[in-house]
């Protein structure tokens, strides 16, 4: 299990190096380069739009997203759906609800799923990884033991197929948004744990750590005030990327029938999963297909926004790519 961590370790190592020639800090430098990056700007723009919609969506929505106002116009059995028209810009869904309003309101829950599940992965993973890294670097023999135990646990989580993990979480907790969040979050734990551990180990031998130790600073303080803040770079990059993954994974879980069936909370993943059975492969622009295509596009564009920003951030933090 040593080599598999190399990519994470490498990322950790890259951000560990500091550019001393310009005198600017790593983050100042990274921010300056982010501003010049088209990728970062596009990503940030997409995310901003998405977040704004998520926050004010319910007020922008022209109709109630849960009201089956036009129930009588949709005939599911005869595959008669209502397409885009004045007043219902993206047509109606299979229960006669306004699709455009549902998309607007759905952004909120999609964002919520992404953020909460990433937070679960981040907090739990960083806790395990941080303790593990600190124990191995500064804990002596007992620390090495603790690190081994924790990392074997992480290995077990990695070896478990993520979707099975998710399905069994759902079996215990039932179908709900919370289930999806936990299932998606748990899968992210080993990634964050590995990353922070590697990053802290890369910092452990830096001169400033030696200096602090030589000055008699306590180990706990060295870890919390010196090593940890300097190890967070790769974790922040991964958090951005994990937000994209979380939104996509949540959609996959909804497709498998684990999403929240509650109609009062429209969410893109669930909308996509529910519309999938009406999907008409012969005509992708038919209203029946559009019901699936619209939320899918929402998911893809949002995930792309987070991915672009994450990749740009990774590049901005990589000293090797500085030119």
């Amino acid at each position: 299990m040593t080599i598999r961590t190399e990519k994470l370790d490498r990322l950790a190592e890259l951000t560990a190096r500091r550019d001393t020639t310009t005198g600017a800090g790593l983050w100042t430098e990274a921010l300056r380069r982010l501003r010049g990056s088209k990728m970062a700007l596009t990503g940030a723009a997409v995310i901003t739009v998405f977040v704004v919609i998520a926050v004010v969506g319910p007020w922008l929505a022209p109709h109630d997203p849960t009201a089956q106002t036009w129930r009588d116009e949709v005939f599911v059995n005869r595959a008669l759906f209502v397409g885009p028209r004045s007043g219902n810009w993206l047509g109606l869904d299979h229960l006669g609800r306004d699709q455009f309003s549902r998309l607007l309101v759905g952004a909120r829950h999609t964002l919520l799923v992404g953020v909460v599940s990433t937070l679960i992965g981040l907090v739990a993973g960083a806790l395990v990884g941080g303790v593990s890294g600190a124990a191995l670097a500064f804990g002596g023999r007992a620390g090495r033991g603790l690190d081994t135990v924790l990392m074997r646990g992480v290995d077990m989580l990695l070896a478990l197929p993520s979707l099975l993990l998710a399905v069994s979480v759902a079996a215990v907790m039932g179908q709900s948004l919370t289930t999806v969040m936990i299932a998606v979050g748990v899968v992210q734990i080993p990634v964050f744990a590995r990353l922070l551990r590697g990053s802290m180990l890369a910092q452990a031998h830096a001169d400033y750590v030696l200096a602090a130790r030589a000055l008699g600073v306590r180990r706990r303080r060295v870890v919390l005030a010196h090593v940890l803040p300097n190890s967070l770079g790769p974790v922040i990059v991964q958090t951005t990327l994990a937000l994209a993954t979380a939104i996509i994974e949540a959609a996959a879980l909804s497709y498998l029938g684990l999403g929240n069936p509650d109609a009062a909370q429209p969410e893109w993943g669930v909308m996509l999963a529910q519309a999938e059975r009406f999907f008409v492969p012969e005509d992708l622009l038919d209203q029946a297909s559009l019901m699936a295509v619209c939320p899918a596009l929402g998911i893809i564009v949002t995930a792309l926004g987070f991915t672009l920003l994450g990749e740009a951030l990774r590049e901005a933090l990589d000293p090797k790519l500085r030119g």
Partner: protein
Amino acid sequence: MLRLIVRRLLQLVPTLLGLTVLLFLWIHRLPGGPASALLGERATEADRRQIEAALGLDEPLWVQYGRWLERLARLDLGTSTQTSRPVWEEFTLRFPATAELALTAMLIAVVVGIPLGYVAARRRGSWLDAAAVSGSLLGVCVPVFFFALILKAVFAVNLGWLPSAGRRSTGIDATEVTGFSVLDGLLTGEWDASLDAVEHLILPGVALASIPLAVIVRITRAGVLEVLTEDYVRTAESKGLRQRVVRGRHVLRNALLPVVTTVGLLTGSLLSGAVLTESVFAFGGIGRFVADAIDARDYPTLMGFILLIALLYVLVNLMVDVAYSVIDPRVRVN
């Protein structure tokens, strides 16, 4: 080398054993049980007791685990409570489909991804590079099942080029030897069966390949870009080595190291990620069966299948580590 492999194999034992303990506790914590699942909601308490006793579920958990472990030592995974057939049989019946699908996807990802990543890096800044990079960014952002649906709609339903579901056309008479349908056709000389199986594999394979392909393109490109600036590449070029030698021995060999690691990691996720693709294309692999096993609280099937998948995953990654030390002499020394 042999010592390394043996040592790594021995290290796997406690990890997997720990995994089985956790799995066992976790699975038995699921609400309900095989008895209730078999009998339905209106079962009497006595009926439930009787079945639980027959399945050995009335004993303390640690006794049950001990029994399971004892059977495992005799390579017996028990009997599925859903189908009353041996778990091992159920696994070998369904695994070939999933394995075939995962291997196809990985093959597509490697065969397309490495050259594409390489060319993109050599022509950095060209339109091809831009297309490869944006394609790979997009690739990870499209939900696999949605991509599968679109592929199916375009190539199977509208264009009619490829079959839309299943592993085999109805008119084809194929003899089963190993369960791997492409291989079976080759072994028995039934070429039409092999060809038919390949046709059925293309669309699901491409759908499942989307994420690994995107990842491999990106990593190959980054690796090549990094190696190209190395001193040893400049040295090799300036001492007059032929381009082909420099590219093959110096650039690619070094750039591919991280790709090898990634391939191992992705194989694991392919095995479980195949669930979505399998369900879109009605492919009949292990995915659906395990999902059903959770619903039916089929304890032996869950334990057996998940253990086998986890075992496969760690073995693939062990193989990757070994391959790594073959390619990279520096790792061997350590």
